[in-house]
């Protein structure tokens, strides 16, 4: 009798314990290969001096030491912070437009589409359009400024304001994105609650703050997440509009890493990896916050 039990195959005995791991396995392999391993590699590479061709030479923490004294690094870091903070303006702006458009008028779908349009066109095109918009000799901005007797301002040639100019360009499509998120959210707002609030005499700002916004929390959360991600992806606009200049004043960390490691005059793989590691650690803070919040929310339910 006892033999029959031991005769059961290993698989049969442990089926319940093993199955979930089997299902997880493909994802885990992919994750290890394409996420974890490159991170480890980057850490490793950041300890070397390597031009991508010759022998890599181990130099310990020298890349990080250089980074510590590198003005360009701090400029890029500061610009990243600017991007993160100012990009969040897309959320209230998107909310405002969404509330404005959330009405039933003839042709409202057309208006909604028009407002959503900037998000559909490629970031590269957005960058080009804004480069022309800012152009000091024929750009629309300076023509308008000229009417009121101001300007011309060469936004992208001025190291003090160029970054703000690029962020403004980035806000254009990002606001549209937040708007569409809120428009969907507004559809799901419970009309009965609004009715009830109205009976209680709430209107205007109070209605928005105490009744509508709490119901939009999921939309706000998503808008926050995509905007932060969008801010960290600012590479393409920087590359198109200023190429990191004038004299490096508009670089963000991702762009600086690219420039150091992969651009025409770059190929300092180790230094680029060191920047990537720092960028990773910074993002880790955000990711941890995000994960902890998700975990708490799930437990709360």
């Amino acid at each position, binding site marked *: 009798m006892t033999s029959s039990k031991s005769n059961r195959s290993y698989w049969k005995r442990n089926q319940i314990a093993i199955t979930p791991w089997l299902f997880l396995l493909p994802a885990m392999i992919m994750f290890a290969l394409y996420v974890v391993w490159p991170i480890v590699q980057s850490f490793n590479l950041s300890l070397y001096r390597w*031009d991508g061709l010759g022998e890599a030479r181990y130099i310990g923490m020298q890349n990080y030491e250089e980074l510590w004294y590198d003005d360009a690094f701090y400029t890029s870091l500061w610009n990243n912070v600017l991007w993160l903070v100012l990009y969040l303006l897309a959320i209230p702006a998107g909310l405002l437009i969404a509330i404005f458009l959330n009405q039933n008028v003839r042709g409202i779908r057309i208006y909604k589409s028009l407002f959503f349009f900037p998000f559909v066109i490629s970031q590269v095109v957005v960058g080009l359009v804004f480069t022309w918009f800012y152009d*000091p000799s024929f750009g629309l901005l300076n023509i308008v400024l000229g009417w009121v007797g101001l300007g011309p301002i060469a936004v992208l*040639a001025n190291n003090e304001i160029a970054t703000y100019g690029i962020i403004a360009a980035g806000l254009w499509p990002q606001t549209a994105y937040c708007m569409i998120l809120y428009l969907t959210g507004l559809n799901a707002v419970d009309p009965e609650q609004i009715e009830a609030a109205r009976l209680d005499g709430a209107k205007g700002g109070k209605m928005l703050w105490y009744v509508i916004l709490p119901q939009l929390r999921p939309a706000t959360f998503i808008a926050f997440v995509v905007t932060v991600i969008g801010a960290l992806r600012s590479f393409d606009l920087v590359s198109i509009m*200023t190429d990191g200049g*004038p004299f490096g004043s508009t670089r963000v960390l991702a762009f600086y890493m690219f420039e150091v490691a*992969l651009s025409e*005059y770059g190929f*300092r793989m180790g230094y680029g990896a060191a920047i990537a590691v720092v960028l990773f650690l910074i993002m880790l803070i955000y990711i941890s916050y995000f994960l902890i919040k998700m975990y708490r929310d799930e437990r709360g339910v």
Partner: protein
Amino acid sequence: MFTLSGPLAKSLITVAASAVVATSAFAQTDGESLTGDLRIFLDTSNPAPRATMEAMIAEFQEMNPELNIETNVIDREAYKTQIRNFLTANAPDVATWYAGNRMLPFVEAGLFEDVSDLWDDEMSEALASTKPSMTIDGAQWGVPYTYYQWGVYYREDIFADLGLGEPTTWDEFLNVINVLNENDIDPVTIGTKFLWTAGGWFDYLNLRQNGYEFHMDLTNGEVAWTDQRVRDTFARWGELLEADTFIDNHAAYSWQEALPFMVNGDAAMYLMGNFAVAPLREAGLSDDQIGFFQFPEITEGIPMAEDAPTDTFHIPAQAENKDNARAFLRFVASADVQSEINSGANLGQLPVNANSTVDDDKFLNEGFEMLSNASALAQFFDRDAPAEVAAAAMEGFQQFMVQPEQLDNILDRLERVRQRVNGG
């Protein structure tokens, strides 16, 4: 690293006389047709250069009907990064690149074939002007096929209206700048968005202020950026900035975007390579309106060296058909081929081979004469200096043009980069 091989002037001119004799020597002499394969990678992706190269390769094919030629044209910008991959894995037999320090990483990594054997006395004489910039560690690593002059292109009609002549000295140059400013014309147009255009100004100011030897020592990292002579060069540049020489907001423009200022007559001069002539003509300026002059002398008595970026052919060390590749390089270096591919209808640039004929084009003629009399040729800042130094320095140049008061910071920064690169 690059030493100058005697005055070019005489060798170029005297050799030109014996053109016929030398030409035949470069053509395939054995008369036997090549067999096997030949894979050629080109970065000549713009329409005109592409057609030129394809026609040239077709000619080579005709001479060697049994040779199986495979040509691959790669976008010029993308090529700069792709070459690193294809030289290490699956290398072609022939690849285009640039002379000077720009080929140093590949030579040091052992990825380019030593082709000193091709550079016999005849070739060395015919290609004398660029031999120094093809030489690293006493060996040659490729052959040049074209170069072009740099200098000041200007609006001849505007100069004539204002009674201005071509300046040959620094004082005359400053005078031209003042007169133009008085007449509400920006003296010089430039677009520094992509930085390298400012490198041209530094090259010329430094070559004229301190001379070729010093310029090469500096770009090779043998002189400190905080050296007084470097400061002297920047002081000249400062004089130009003080005289309000350059257009406003140049950091917002690429070099093409800076052209309309000159086309519209809002600006009168442009320090550029000869490739600027084509877009100026296309924009409607006639040859009577465009003039060219050599960058004026600054320090009296210093021999005039010029920027002449050279494009080259190389054989990757891992190539499989090196004999065929060598034959092709010999073909490309020959006087006839270089005359043909550099003609106005094709590349519209200057042949490197001294026995070639130059197309009858106003700017090619002036350029050929200027380079023939040049005491030495620099490749251009971003090809003479190591990539890392070039990137940092050109950014510093742009910053200096906007914030001249930051000079000390800029030079300190460059000196740190130099020391790190040298230390590495």
